[in-house]
C-alpha cells in the first residue's frame, strides 16, 4: 500500500506520526477561517451543548497542539470538505515541519514531497514559486489591490496577453506589463530558472529572495531531487495562506495537481505562537482513483459443489490446498450459482471433482 510506503519514507527522515480525532471544537475553524479553503463545515452539538466540527484540515490541529517546540510530524487522516457541491471524505497524507525554519528545513520538506511522488510514479514534477517575491514585485510596481488580484489570476492562467489588456486599461505601466509577461512565461528547471529570476529582482529585498532560492537549489542537489524541480510563477493560489515558498506536485498519469504545500508562518502567528512552519498535503483519493490497477478477476477459482451429495470436509480440504498455494478461492453451492448477489468473476470455474483433480496435481 502507498500509505505504508509514504509513512516509512517520512519516518526515515525522523518525522513522527500525528494522530487526531475526527472532530475539533468549532471555534478552532471559525477563528482561523482565512486558513481554510472553504467556510463550509459539518458541525454538530456535543452532549454538553458545545459545538464541534468534523475536521476539514489537519494542519490547524497540528499547529494548535504544538506548545512552541521544534517538531516534525506526518499524518494520514480523512478530512471532510465540500467538493462538487457535496461534502466528501478525503484521505490526505502530509508532513509539517515546525520551529525555526531555515533553508535546510525548507529544502527537506520539498525534497520529501518529491520523494513521495517518486513512490507514486517515475515521471513527476515539483513546481516551486515564491509568494513573497511576486508580492514584492507588485508592490515595487505600485499595483493597487484589485490590479494585484487581476495580475495573480493572469499568472495562474499563464495568460501573457492579459497584461497588455491591463496596461491598456491603465492599471499597470507598459514596462511593468512587459516584465510580468516574460515572468509568466518562466517555466524552467529550478537552477536555470533561479539564475534567470535574478534579473527580475528589482529591489534589494527581491535580490535577497532570489539568493535564498539559489541556496535551496544546492540543497536539492544533495538530496538528489534537483532535476525534477521546476521554477514556475503561474503557481499562485492561496497567497493569503502562504507567505514564502509555495510548491505543487503532479505525476504524468494524473491530470490534476495531487500535492500542494508551502511556507505558512502567518497561521502560527495568528495563534500567538512564535515559530515558522512549512508542510504539504497529498491527495491520496485522487491517486487511488487513477492508479489502482484493475485486476479483472475477483478470485482465481470458483468451486461449485453439490450441497447434498458432496462432502463438506472435501470442499474444505480443497480450498485449503489452493489457499496454501496463494490462490483466492470462492465456493458456492451449485444450485445457488445463478443467484449470487455479485456475479463473481473467476479465472477458472470448477466443480468439486475437477478442483480435487487440479489440487492433486499441485
Amino acid at each position: 500500500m502507498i500509505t505504508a510506503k509514504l509513512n516509512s519514507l517520512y519516518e526515515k527522515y525522523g518525522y513522527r506520526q500525528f494522530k487526531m480525532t475526527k472532530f475539533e471544537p468549532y471555534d478552532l475553524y471559525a477563528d482561523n477561517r482565512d486558513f481554510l479553503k472553504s467556510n463550509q463545515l459539518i458541525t454538530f452539538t456535543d452532549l454538553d451543548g458545545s459545538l464541534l466540527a468534523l475536521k476539514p484540515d489537519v494542519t490547524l490541529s497540528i499547529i494548535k497542539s504544538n506548545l512552541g517546540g521544534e517538531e516534525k510530524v506526518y499524518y494520514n487522516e480523512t478530512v471532510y470538505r465540500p467538493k462538487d457541491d457535496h461534502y466528501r471524505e478525503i484521505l490526505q497524507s502530509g508532513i509539517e515541519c515546525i520551529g525555526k525554519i531555515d533553508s535546510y528545513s525548507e529544502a527537506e520538506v520539498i525534497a520529501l514531497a518529491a520523494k513521495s511522488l517518486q513512490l507514486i510514479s517515475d515521471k513527476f514534477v515539483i513546481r516551486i514559486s515564491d509568494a513573497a517575491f511576486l508580492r514584492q514585485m507588485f508592490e515595487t510596481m505600485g499595483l493597487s489591490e484589485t490590479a494585484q488580484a487581476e495580475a495573480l489570476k493572469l499568472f495562474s492562467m499563464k495568460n501573457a496577453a492579459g497584461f497588455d489588456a491591463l496596461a491598456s486599461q491603465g492599471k499597470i505601466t507598459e514596462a511593468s506589463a512587459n516584465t510580468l509577461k516574460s515572468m509568466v512565461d518562466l517555466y524552467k528547471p529550478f537552477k536555470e530558472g533561479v539564475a534567470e529570476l535574478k534579473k527580475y529582482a528589482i529591489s534589494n529585498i527581491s535580490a535577497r529572495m532570489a539568493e535564498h532560492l539559489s541556496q535551496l537549489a544546492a540543497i536539492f542537489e544533495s538530496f538528489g531531487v534537483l532535476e525534477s524541480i521546476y521554477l514556475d510563477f503561474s503557481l499562485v493560489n492561496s497567497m493569503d495562506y502562504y507567505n514564502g515558498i509555495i510548491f505543487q506536485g503532479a505525476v504524468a498519469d494524473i491530470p490534476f495537481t495531487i500535492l500542494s504545500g508551502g511556507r505558512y508562518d502567518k497561521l502560527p502567528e495568528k495563534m500567538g505562537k512564535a515559530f515558522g512552519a512549512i508542510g504539504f498535503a497529498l491527495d491520496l483519493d485522487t491517486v487511488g482513483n487513477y492508479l489502482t490497477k484493475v485486476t479483472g478477476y475477483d478470485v482465481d477459482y470458483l468451486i461449485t459443489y453439490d450441497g447434498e451429495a458432496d462432502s463438506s470436509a472435501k470442499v474444505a480440504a480443497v480450498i485449503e490446498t489452493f489457499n496454501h498455494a496463494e490462490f483466492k478461492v470462492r465456493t458456492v453451492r451449485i444450485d445457488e450459482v445463478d443467484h449470487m448477489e455479485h456475479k463473481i468473476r473467476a479465472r477458472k470455474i470448477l466443480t468439486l471433482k475437477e478442483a480435487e483433480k487440479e489440487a492433486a496435481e499441485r
Partner: protein
Amino acid sequence: MINIALAKGRLGEKTYSMMAAAGFDCPAILEKNRKLTFENPEKGVRYFWVKPSDVAIYVERGAADVGVCGKDILLEYDPDLYELLDLGIGKCRMCVAGPKDFYDNEERTLRVATKFSNVARTYYESIGRDIDIIKLNGSIEIAPLLGLSDVIFDIVETGGTLRENNLEVLQEVVPVSARLVCNKVSFQFKHEEIIRLRDGLGNIVKSGEEVQTIKLEH
C-alpha cells in the same frame, strides 16, 4: 503525442487550419470515414472533435492536452487551465442587447435571458443592478420578443440577428476571441511540444496573415 480537442464547427476548422499551417498537420483528418480520432505520429498529434462548450472540460480533465475555445466559455465556467494564446479568430463581443427603445427602469428587477448566467451575474453585481437570470440554452433573441425577459446577455458577432428582430446592443461588456488552452499537468510533462505548438501559432497570429480555412467533415 499531444491530444488536441477541436470544437465542432467553423472555429474547429479554422483552428485545425492554423495548426496545420504551424506544422502540426494530420492528413487522416481529411479522409472521409467514421473514425473519431485522427493521428499523425510523425508530427506527434492526435485530433478529435467535441462540442464547442465541452472543449474546456476535456482539457481541464486531461483527456485533451490542449484545445481551442472561446473566451466566453472560459469566463462562464472558469476552468482550472492555462490560457496560452489569443488566436485572434472567432472574434465577437459579449453584450447586453434589448429592444431598440428599451428604457431601464431601475425600480424593477431586470429580467435577463442568457446562456452565460455566471458572467451576467458577475457583470450586474459589479454595476450594482438587481437582476433575475433566466437561463436558456439557445435562441436567446426570442426571449425579449415574447416578453420572457427585458434584455438578453449574449455574444454578438455581426449583430445581424439582432437587427432583423428589432433588437440592438445596449452595452458592450467584454470582447471575446478564441484562446489556446492547455491542461496544467500536461504543460509540465509535454512542455516542449506544447511550447512549439504555442509559438508556431503565435507566429501566425503575429504575422497577421490570413490562413486559408480547410473544409473538414465532422
